[in-house]
């Protein structure tokens, strides 16, 4: 609970600073006014429509596709020479690239609706998953693989029953990077394309110089982000209950 105190201090400082007259309410509306705005957005149902679109229709589908495809690609790179030869340079160039620059290209190909936003999220979120998976598999103890082979495990069984669990801590770390990234990209894509969603609502508020709406959007998106990060940490603990890192 002691950790809440600095947060409350910031909230109080925000309120006091906004009311002190040092800044106009346009530059920084008081926190109470912003909370009031969030409340009325929630009461009118607008908040839920936007949050549902951003989270359930964009962020999560994009993240899930990136997670599955990224782990699959990671396994392919780690276990198959041809896949490694083809994908390795693409990953090593694609990872550090600012993929967001491709947004207009994706819009040109897939239009303005969900498909382009989800594709953009996948394009961004897949790389941390791939590199984490490859690194995770590379670090699996050889003795584990040899023993499994010795006991007659086939390649498929080896991957599912030995490598996947053994590499899971690192894969989860990759997923923990990918999920907040998915939300960031969803918000940017919504801002750039307009329509509905938390990001789009924020940008619309900014166009109409509605600063309460802008700050309400920040608080809403920050809360969604915090929930996602905490949720992933919880999922990690659940999936790795058997692992020393959880039992420590």
């Amino acid at each position, binding site marked *: 609970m002691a950790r809440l105190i600095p947060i409350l201090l910031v909230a109080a400082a925000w309120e006091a600073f906004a009311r002190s007259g040092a800044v106009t309410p346009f530059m920084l509306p008081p926190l109470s006014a912003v909370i009031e705005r969030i409340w009325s957005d929630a009461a009118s149902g607008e908040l839920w429509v936007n949050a549902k679109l951003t989270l359930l229709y964009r962020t999560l589908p994009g993240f899930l596709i990136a997670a599955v495809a990224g782990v699959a690609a990671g396994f392919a790179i780690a276990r198959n020479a041809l896949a490694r030869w083809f994908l390795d340079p693409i990953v090593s160039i694609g990872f550090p690239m600012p993929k967001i*620059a491709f947004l207009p290209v994706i819009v*040109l190909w897939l239009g303005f609706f969900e498909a382009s936003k989800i594709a953009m999220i996948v394009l961004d979120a897949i790389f941390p998953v791939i590199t984490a998976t490859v690194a995770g598999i590379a670090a699996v103890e050889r003795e584990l693989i040899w023993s499994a082979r010795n006991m007659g495990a086939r390649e498929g069984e080896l991957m599912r029953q030995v490598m996947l669990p053994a590499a899971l801590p690192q894969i989860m770390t990759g997923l923990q990077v990918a999920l907040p990234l998915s939300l960031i990209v969803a*918000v*940017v894509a919504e801002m750039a394309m307009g329509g509905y969603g938390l990001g789009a609502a*924020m940008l619309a508020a900014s166009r109409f110089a509605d600063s309460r709406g802008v700050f309400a*959007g920040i608080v809403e998106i920050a809360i969604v982000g915090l929930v996602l*990060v905490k949720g992933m940490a919880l999922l990690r603990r659940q999936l790795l209950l058997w692992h020393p890192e959880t039992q420590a």
Partner: protein
Amino acid sequence: MTPVLRYLPLLILALAWEAAARLGLVSSLALPPLSRVAVAWLDLARDGELTTNGLASLYRASAGLALAIVIGAALGVGMAWWKHFDALVGPLVELFYPMPKSALIPVTVLWLGLGDGSKILLIFLGCMLPVTLGAFNGARGADRMLIWSARSMGAGPLRVLRDVVLPGALPELLNGIRTALALAFVLLVSSELIVAQQGLGYLIGYLGSTGTYDGMFAVVLTVAAAGFLADRAYQALMNRALQWRD
């Protein structure tokens, strides 16, 4: 593996792109042939569009990043050095770290308008926390024995900070800066795409909205290449800076 064989897949992709567009497998509107994109790039470079907008972007990114590195590193080392400071700032860093930084785009515009100021502030705010966290983890992990030895040999707190803690924190700090570098590109391009009158991101959006797709592809590839090269150059620099370690 020789470099040629290693990067052959990229060449294959480039050839497939050219062929698909030339053979009409995809509309050349949706995917202009790579050769035409190259010509468009030369045109953009010749009439100075690329330089003017590139310099505007470079200025914003480097100013924002420089602020983030200086202030972020100071915050992180301060948190590791003074317990009370950590008790105050630590929970805030934890609170703001997972916050999607792109949500700040409209706010910085609200505060500083459409020009350079809002982008610099955005990049500064967005890139600061990874640097802070790197500096904090690095400085916190500083070797106690080294600090004690330095103290016992008569080094004052500032000496210890400069000659023991900072070099020890360097690897993690430099890693944090690498994350910040990648973030700076993302924030720069997204904010320029969304609200700007100048910069490479703006140029991409502008060319796209006028239907000059070969030019748009040329700028997109330029930005992507710049991000990649910046990361590679930074890595090389980082390895040199850390050469003294065993």
